[in-house]
């Protein structure tokens, strides 16, 4: 039988606020256990929540970016369940009145555009963490993360393959970073994915029973988990069983999903409006303000890069995936004097390679966009060759010097002086008559010998175009 995969995603994007959604404690990652859990986060008796303005603004920005309806009034509700990492015994979330309503997002898979519906996005607080290392046979609870603002983005079950799911997740991942509302760091859990997967016989209208897979913190895991889960469900059905509606955990080490025992029990969350918080009002003024603050979005930027900078589709894709990368590129182009293609090559080539090697984000690049642009400018005006430029970049990487300083200090300026080059060529030809003869006898490849010798003599500084031109003239005789 032919099976069709149906995928819907719930993405939790940690909002890049300084303080928590309902308290003034810091959201910084990696602090000592419970040092960023204040009285409100610990749910001490008598404490009360007050909503973080920035979290609301971020949610509105997201909604505007996906063309969604922004609720003029949204309501926080309490989702009741007991768990040690949930200090109040309920999670403050939004239920029937989320801040962001229906929107959509276009993805491209195999060159085809597909529109994925975004059902809703709502604000909620994150839980703490249970640490299962052995504390006298007990579990330790760290509540630093408790109360960190999350935007839960729920898609329609519109995806039909792992590839589509990945494209959607990547699209969102790029978008939230563009908007500056989430740092997108998947390792630190700033961008988490739950995937709802079901299968149905091709052509069937109704959905199959879905399983929810949690804990997917990389694109690769999403792909593997979906592939595994689809296979598992088909196996179950084809061997006469039926898929259970359940929560499953992806185990990256074993590359399998397994049922989560603790979540097996059917939960009755008893949602009701949180009486400690009032309806969140989004005024027309705030909507206008957020609309004005909306940055250029990835697609628009991509198109603009292709027209304004004459980049091909591939280069534009690569350069606009991260807003920081795009910003870097544009700044570098500016200081290079408009060398759009050359800068693209250098950003995507040498710079990215260097960053990858040291596992650095573009924001932490040791060579600023301005400095890289300055370097490219010297390649373009033939002060140095591309090869020498790599050497210069290396020296710039470990210092604060700009390209000109390094070129000057290291004497790397290209020799383009025709007279000087001619003199060197004449001397070399005089010393190597045999090779000259061979060349003139038709062995034109011999030009490489002369180029090599001269480059060696000039330590690579000879202007290669000039050198070639002169050599060809002289060798012809």
């Amino acid at each position, binding site marked *: 039988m032919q099976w069709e995969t149906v995928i819907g995603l719930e993405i939790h994007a940690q909002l890049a*606020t*300084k*303080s928590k959604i309902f*308290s*003034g*404690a*810091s959201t910084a990652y990696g602090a*000592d*256990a*419970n*040092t*960023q*859990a*204040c*009285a409100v986060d*610990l749910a*001490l008796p008598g404490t009360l929540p*007050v*909503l*973080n*303005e*920035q*979290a*609301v603004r971020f949610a509105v920005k997201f909604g505007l970016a996906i063309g969604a309806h922004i609720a003029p*009034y949204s*309501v926080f509700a309490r989702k*009741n369940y*007991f*768990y*040690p990492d949930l200090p109040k015994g309920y999670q403050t979330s939004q239920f029937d009145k989320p801040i962001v309503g229906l929107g959509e997002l276009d993805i491209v898979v195999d060159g085809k555009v597909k529109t994925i519906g975004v059902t809703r996005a709502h604000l909620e607080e994150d839980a703490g963490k*249970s*640490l*299962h290392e052995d*504390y*006298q*046979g*007990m*579990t*330790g*609870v*760290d*509540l630093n993360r408790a109360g960190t603002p999350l935007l839960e983005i729920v898609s329609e079950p519109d995806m039909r393959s792992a590839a589509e799911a990945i494209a959607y997740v990547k699209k969102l991942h790029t978008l939230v970073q563009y908007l500056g509302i989430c740092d997108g760091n998947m390792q630190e859990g700033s961008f988490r994915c739950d995937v709802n997967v079901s299968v149905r016989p091709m052509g069937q209208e109704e959905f199959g029973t879905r399983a929810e897979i949690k804990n997917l913190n990389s694109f690769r895991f999403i792909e593997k988990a979906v592939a595994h889960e689809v296979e598992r469900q088909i196996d179950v059905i084809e061997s006469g069983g039926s898929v259970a509606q359940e929560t499953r*955990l992806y185990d990256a080490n074993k590359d399998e999903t397994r049922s*989560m*025992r*603790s979540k097996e029990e059917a939960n*009755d969350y*008893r949602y009701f*409006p949180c*009486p400690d*918080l*009032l*309806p*969140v*009002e989004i005024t027309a003024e705030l909507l206008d303000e957020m609309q004005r603050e909306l940055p250029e979005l990835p697609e628009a930027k991509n198109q603009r890069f292709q027209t304004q900078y004459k980049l091909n589709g591939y280069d534009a894709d690569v350069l606009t995936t991260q807003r920081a990368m795009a910003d870097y590129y544009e700044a570098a182009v500016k200081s290079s004097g408009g060398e759009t293609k050359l800068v693209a090559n250098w950003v995507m080539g040498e710079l990215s390679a260097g960053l990858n090697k040291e596992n650095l984000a573009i924001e932490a690049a040791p060579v600023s966009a301005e400095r890289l642009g300055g370097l490219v400018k010297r390649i373009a005006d033939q002060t140095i060759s591309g090869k020498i430029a790599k050497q210069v970049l290396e020296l710039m990487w470990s210092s604060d010097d700009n390209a000109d300083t390094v070129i000057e200090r290291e004497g790397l300026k290209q020799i383009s002086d025709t007279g000087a080059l001619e003199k060197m060529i004449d001397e070399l030809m005089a010393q190597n008559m045999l090779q000259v003869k061979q060349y003139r006898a038709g062995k034109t490849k011999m030009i490489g010998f002369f180029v090599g010798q001269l480059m060696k003599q000039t330590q690579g500084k000879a202007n290669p175009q000039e050198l070639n031109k002169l050599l060809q003239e002289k060798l012809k005789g």
Partner: protein
Amino acid sequence: MSIQSEDVLKIAHLARLGIEEGQVESYASDLSNIMKLVEQMNEVDTSGIEPMAHPLDQSQRLRADVVSETNQREELQKNAPEIEDGLFLVPRVID
């Protein structure tokens, strides 16, 4: 709505309340009486009435995104029943 013993057990579990076996029936009877009182609400037709969650019709005030709380772990954990390395300890949690 009359509340039976099994309802009591179900909601006691939802609310994580340990209830002595001998008390289940008396809870069932108390809760049934309370629900009978509650159901007097059915006397009035409320169709079309907007539910009211707060006494005052106001909207949520927003707090500036400022870190105002510093580390108070030592002070805040003074009431904790069991801690180690700054962590609150609970019986082993199985995911």
